[in-house]
């Protein structure tokens, strides 16, 4: 099975202090380190395991610019056979819908049996996978925690739902799946491996090479536009609740209800 994994380069929240920049138009990007979006990494590992079980190749693709080649190379060091960069000035400022349309155009230039994405990325939208599936008219499943290849062009998958329960589905190929972390244990990619792929070529495709549907990609076509970042006023230290235990409990229960702590 030939698998495509759509990946994204993000600033890892564990290794960065994310703050809004001075005028709130973006996060402060100076001093950020980037890495592959963690769920995407799980997806690549899953793709590699599937490809090794069934025979086939794994391609990783991202929409972005030259900086994004880093993560493509890292996944190639992990075992992906090919990294592809989709870059074009006209793609800048795309919303999720736009990114999905660009990916769809790329998918249509090749033949893939299975397309994987990570369940969500730094913006927590969890949308590109589902959108891509709808555009391609492929079946879709999100939050996938296990994949089993079954006879007859089907997969048997598990989705993770509330409280740890699992939904088991049969899904036809080709399909799009968004992968949840914990589905496997990704292999480690050492610095040596990365160095060894440092000079491999990464093909780059833009608007002329693919037929991106009109009205989707680019800033002018975005239906969802970011107006700015801000940090809601944070209090310094805890608000200490005073009074008798009963009074404190009353106040606490009110607050918990408001914050969704009582179900």
């Amino acid at each position, binding site marked *: 099975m030939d698998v495509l994994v759509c990946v994204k380069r993000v600033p890892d929240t564990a290794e960065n202090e994310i703050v809004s920049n001075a005028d709130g138009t973006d996060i402060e990007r100076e001093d950020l380190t980037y890495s592959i979006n963690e769920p995407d990494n799980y997806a690549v590992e899953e793709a590699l395991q599937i490809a090794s079980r069934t025979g086939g190749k794994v391609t990783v693709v991202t929409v972005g610019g030259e900086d994004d080649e880093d993560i493509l190379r890292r996944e190639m060091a992990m075992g992906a056979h090919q990294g592809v960069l989709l870059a074009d000035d006209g793609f800048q400022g795309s919303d999720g819908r736009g990114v999905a349309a660009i990916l769809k155009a790329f998918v249509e230039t090749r033949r893939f049996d299975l397309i994987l994405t990570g369940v969500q990325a730094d913006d927590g939208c969890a949308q590109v996978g589902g959108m891509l599936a709808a555009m391609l008219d492929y079946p879709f499943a999100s939050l996938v925690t296990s994949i089993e290849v079954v006879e007859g062009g089907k997969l048997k998958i598990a989705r993770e739902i509330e409280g740890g329960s699992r939904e088991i589905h049969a899904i036809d190929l080709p399909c799009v799946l968004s992968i949840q972390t914990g589905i496997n244990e990704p292999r480690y990619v050492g610095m040596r491996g990365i160095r060894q792929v440092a000079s491999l070529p990464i093909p780059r495709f833009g608007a002329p090479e693919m037929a991106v549907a009109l009205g989707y990609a680019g800033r002018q076509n975005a239906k969802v536009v970011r107006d700015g970042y801000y940090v809601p006023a944070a209090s310094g230290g805890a608000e200490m609740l005073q009074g008798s235990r*009963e009074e404190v409990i009353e106040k606490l229960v009110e607050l918990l209800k408001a914050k969704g702590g009582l179900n």
Partner: protein
Amino acid sequence: MPRIFSYILHKNGAADDSALELIAAAGKIDPSQPPAAVVCGWGRELDEVCQKLRASYAEVWRIGCEPLAYPDAELLRMVLARALPPGSILLVPHGHFGVDLSPGLAIRWNAAYAPDVVDIEGVDGRWLKIVRQEYAGIISARYRCDISGGAVLNLRPGAFRPVEMAPVSGQVIDHSANAGELTARRTHLETIPAEIGDVDITREAVLVSVGRGIEDRENIAIAEDLAEAMGAAVSCSRPVVDAKWLDKSRQVGSSGKTVRPKVYLACGISGSFQHMAGLKGNPFVVAINKNPKAPIFRVADIGIVDDILEFLPELASRVREETAIPGRERRRP
């Protein structure tokens, strides 16, 4: 202004709490227009839900087909695309179902999609102004969505407090015929419930977390009782795992799990750096600790100086009083 619909999640004949939250959200989009509820399912349970919703929704669109007995997003996407008027705004609770349903639905409608919305700030021409959180909840972002072609909005459960309303006597309208023929290339085979005791704290929205202050293995039961009352799960800091009072899978911290709950009760936890490093997404942190100088009070939202061994049981019984409303499902999103 397009018509606003609320997608109702339900189980065992009762609607999810989000049903009321969606009304509040709809009110922020268009106060003049009460939303209609869309309820899909099958059989008597579907009818029960629809009847109960009449108290809050003026219009309840009932779509009942046997294949919809189990809520499968692939089928429901098809149903909603057919049954709802083009250009509508659909409000869906964000969660494992919403994430499965909504992105594809938005594409079907060629409409805007905004996931995990935590606030709505109003409408400006064709733009709906919303607030989301990004980077694991560290930072908030304002967005505007072009609703001229309709929209699908996934709302974060708990972000929109249900508002006081005058009781409504709504009507249930059956739209089952609009569902059409349902075929899907994904079929639900079964749902395997989580193993008893098999709790993944990283997926829990509310955590009752205990530290050394719980003092003894036997006292863990106090935390479990409170968690049960709250519909939460019990987690802990490392010392509790080391002492083997709880399994390692319950540990929050840099050498344990990273959790992103909405609400975190830190009971008898000192608030060490290693522990707090496992807590992400800017949850609402309530710290209860005997020691007024515990570092946790620097990072918590609410601080209570008290003995958890006495405080928690009283809190649990008060919570039980509060949540003992019939029909209210104990949901853990």
